[in-house]
């Protein structure tokens, strides 16, 4: 298909704003003199009962407007499970949990007052490890778990610390292992990680004198936030129409700004301070300890394969450290519990994905939504088992790769995909078969390979909608509610509308959303927005086009089927001389001979919901529903250089291929691959959240928690786009943003093994860990 704007790397439409300093982020908005500042008093205990809170000294400080505690807001919230309060009520469950707030005239006064609040705790036993939390007699974090409202596809186990247990069963596991020639069992561990968007969370709530709550929020989820605010604050008499969320530009999200975390605090505080705006901005330290983190994982895998390389069975048990509240994080557990076979055709499968409460900060969405953690173990084991039977690991992966029409673990047919093409292209790009020998005797070289897949994890009714409004000059305002968290959403949506309406993308303006004016969008998460919102935008553009053709037909009596749009004008196949520029009528109507006008402003609307999606699978097997709309697949490979004395590693070359379905803007996809890969590589090589035995995070800043700098970029990154169209995607497109991170950990682990014969099963794979492993091996590093 020959497109004019689709498949073209048109420049980002937010470019001038963002490189000139004009782009407005949440903290940049000026609220005038009636702005108040909130400061949070956080729990210093990982698990304790709150005996008393003395706010009297803080209240006396000049400039303090009010001090609030849990008593003021006994409201629960949560996206998938309502297990969290705006402020701790009778007990705290992690270090950093919000217990009270000071609202003051200046941030300095608020900070000073916060130090004057005295809280008396009665310590409870602390459980910081999911395996400990599962033991008989472990302290219960949520004794009332059975009463918590949650989505129907979650299965909490009352009187335990298990918030959700996703079981997937397929085929006959015992027979599968009986059929195997080789069976391997291994355990893999992944720690917690932090998103580290450079903009910390900020939200400003204003409850005006008419009883209207507006929240400006650095958010990936404006409509979901409005919904959760309205639900949580309903006891105050607020309804959805009274709550408005405005989301300016967002300085990075990666899942950390999905759903609601700290934003509920200024929203709630504002309701008690009519007429003021109340601002809360997390410091970098607060950002580390009281937003979502990536969940920790212990994964126990058992795989059976035949000598010909066929996988016969997989038993995959994944225990997640989901933290003190699982209101969003439990869905990570759910998503992976459905998909922990990886992109493989496996006839006999058992998956147990177990969501466990611990006294650490709440886990939640993070780019990759659990698949990175799951793939670290699985793709390490795949390489190990291929080596064990003496088969080339890429040939092994090709042999077992899931193809269109194969069944997933939950019994649904796999969507069209370019997995084999991705494997072959990566293999070629990295020159896989060429044996590497380092010229430097102190260095070892290794190659690592990994496949990946991921489906958007969404409720079955997650939907998108779009309004499209023409202006007099045939320029367009596209009014939608997805967030451009950096991926280039606004540009891609403009390209879709541009293609249908034959208006250049640079004549289309897409602004950040306001829930009052922009139509509904579930959330900008799950790498589904190009697909879902793209469908809605396409439909809105088609709706506008149909109105245009109907009007032209009415006035000129030309057959609708023969009309088309080209270069901002209506043209006709049967009357080549007909050329009616959009700007001549698109708002002001078409003038007729009798001096009347026909038509009027053209506005399009579109919506999309995947009506085949269903979460109604059997709780014991996950068979029977259609929980995922589709999977995006891909492959990655890299060359790693390891200093045999220090363990220091350097990625010399990395290739990653991803099946985008249709690359609406190839350069933006390549940008996602480059950025996502570096973020992924950092989680393997040096990022690491360290907690002490009291549950306190030891490295909540960029000095001690290392994220990559410009000096850490691999020498060569080769992004590869594969295009096997998604049948229900806009122009065939699928999401790719999160997937770019997924193969990083197993690629490194497999390359370390290739170089040194050392298999590391705990992330991160730091230089220190590698150096110690080399010493353990007695200096034998040739594997």
């Amino acid at each position, binding site marked *: 298909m020959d497109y004019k704007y689709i498949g073209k790397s048109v*420049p*980002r439409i*937010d*470019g*001038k*704003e*963002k*490189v*000139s*300093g*004009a*782009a*407005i*982020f949440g*903290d*940049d908005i*000026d609220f005038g003199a009636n702005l108040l500042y909130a400061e949070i008093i956080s729990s210093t205990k990982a698990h304790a009962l709150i005996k008393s809170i003395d706010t009297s000294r803080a209240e006396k400080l000049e400039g303090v407007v009010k001090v609030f505690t849990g008593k003021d807001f006994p409201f629960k919230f949560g996206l998938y499970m309502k297990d969290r309060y705006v402020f701790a009520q009778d007990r705290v469950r992690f270090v950093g949990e919000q217990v009270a707030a000071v609202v003051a005239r200046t941030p300095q006064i608020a900070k000073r007052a916060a130090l004057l609040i005295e809280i008396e705790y009665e310590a409870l036993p602390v459980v910081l490890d999911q395996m400990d939390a599962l033991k008989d007699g472990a302290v219960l974090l949520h004794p009332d778990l059975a009463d918590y409202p949650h989505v129907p596809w979650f299965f909490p186990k009352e009187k335990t610390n298990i918030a959700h247990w996703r079981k997937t069963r397929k085929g006959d596991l015992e027979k599968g292992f009986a059929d195997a020639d080789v069976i391997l069992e291994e355990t893999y561990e992944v720690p917690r990680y932090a*998103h*580290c*968007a*450079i*903009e*910390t969370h900020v939200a400003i709530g204003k409850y005006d004198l008419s009883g209207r709550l507006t929240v400006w929020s650095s958010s990936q989820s404006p409509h979901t936030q409005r919904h959760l605010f309205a639900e949580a604050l309903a006891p105050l008499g607020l309804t959805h129409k009274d709550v408005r969320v405005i989301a300016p*530009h*967002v*300085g*990075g*999200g*990666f899942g950390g700004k999905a759903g609601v975390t700290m934003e509920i605090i200024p929203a709630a505080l504002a309701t008690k301070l009519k007429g003021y705006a109340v601002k809360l*901005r997390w*410091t*970098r330290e607060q950002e580390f300890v009281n937003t979502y983190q990536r969940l920790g994982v212990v994964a126990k895998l058992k795989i059976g394969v035949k000598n010909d390389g066929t996988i016969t069975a997989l038993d995959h048990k994944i225990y997640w450290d989901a933290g003190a509240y699982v209101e969003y994080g439990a869905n990570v557990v759910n998503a992976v519990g459905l998909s922990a076979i990886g992109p493989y055709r496996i006839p006999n499968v058992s998956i147990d994905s177990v969501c466990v409460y611990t006294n650490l900060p709440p886990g939640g969405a993070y780019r990759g939504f659990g698949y990175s953690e799951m793939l670290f173990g699985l793709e390490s084991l795949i390489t190990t088992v291929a080596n064990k039977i003496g088969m080339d690991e890429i040939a092994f992966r090709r042999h077992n790769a899931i193809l269109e029409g194969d069944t997933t673990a939950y019994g649904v047919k796999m969507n069209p995909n370019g997995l084999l093409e991705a494997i072959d292209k990566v293999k070629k790009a990295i020159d896989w078969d060429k044996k590497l020998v380092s010229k430097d005797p102190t260095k070892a070289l290794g190659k690592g390979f990994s496949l990946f897949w991921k489906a958007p994890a969404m409720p079955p009714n997650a939907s998108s909608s779009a309004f499209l409004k023409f202006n007099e000059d045939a320029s367009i305002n596209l009014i939608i509610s997805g967030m*451009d*968290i*950096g*991926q*280039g959403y606004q540009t891609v949506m403009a390209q879709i509308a541009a293609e249908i309406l034959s208006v250049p993308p640079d004549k289309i303006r897409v602004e950040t959303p306001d829930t009052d004016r922009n139509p509904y969008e579930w959330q900008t998460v799950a790498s589904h927005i190009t697909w879902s919102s793209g469908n809605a935008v396409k439909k809105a553009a088609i709706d506008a086009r149909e109105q245009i053709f109907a009007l032209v037909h009415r006035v000129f009596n030309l057959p609708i089927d023969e009309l088309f749009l080209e270069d901002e004008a209506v043209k006709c196949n049967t009357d080549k001389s007909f050329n009616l520029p959009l700007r001549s009528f698109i708002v002001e109507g078409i003038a007729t001979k009798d001096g009347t006008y026909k038509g009027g402003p053209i506005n399009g609307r579109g919506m999309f919901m995947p009506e085949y999606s269903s979460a109604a699978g059997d709780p014991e097997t996950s068979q029977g529903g259609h929980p995922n709309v589709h999977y995006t697949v891909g492959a990655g490979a890299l060359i790693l250089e390891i200093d045999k004395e220090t363990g220091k590693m350097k990625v010399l070359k990395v290739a990653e291929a991803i099946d985008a379905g249709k690359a609406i803007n190839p*350069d*933006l996809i390549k*940008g996602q691959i*480059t*950025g*996502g*890969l*570096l*973020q992924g590589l950092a989680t393997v090589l040096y990022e690491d959240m360290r907690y002490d035995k009291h549950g306190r995070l030891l490295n909540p*800043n*960029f*000095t001690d928690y290392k*994220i*990559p*700098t*410009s*000096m850490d*970029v691999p020498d060569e*990154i080769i992004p590869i786009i594969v295009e096997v169209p998604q049948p229900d995607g806009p122009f065939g497109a699928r999401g790719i943003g999160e997937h770019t991170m997924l193969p990083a950990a197993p690629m490194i682990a497999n390359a370390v093994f290739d170089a040194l014969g050392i298999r590391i099963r705990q992330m991160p794979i730091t230089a220190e860990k590698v150096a110690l492993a080399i010493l353990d091996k007695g200096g034998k590093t040739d594997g």
Partner: protein
Amino acid sequence: MAKIRITLNKEKRRLDVETNETLLEVLRDKLGMKSPKCGCDRGDCGSCAVLLSGKSVRSCLILAIECDGVEITTLEGISQDGMNKLQEAFIEFSSFQCGYCAPGVIISATELLKANPHPSLDEIKEALSGNLCRCTGYTPIFDAILAATKKEK
């Protein structure tokens, strides 16, 4: 409270500052310059970089009171007369994603190109090593800076 005089984006300004206010706070809250961003408030991320008499500094680490008599340039100042070659290259190469680090990155790159109009890739990496970007993987930033130097030839 103390009185200081500065030249901000070529305009002479006088203002009162608290002795404990950072340059970043004063620029953002008192002078309305929102391009310097607060990302860490302790000099780690570089989002708050501005030019102080031509040298890039982290404005979160400098007290405003120390800036009496100096010339300060923010990204707003650089952008007043339209996009320069560096900024055009940033748009061409999508050298930003969320855009939050972009002001600080452009300030650092501006300082680099002034001192060294034709830097090598390694020199670019070195000059940007204090600006954290979580989105782009840095490569598109390197590409833009290299392209901008070619444009100037």
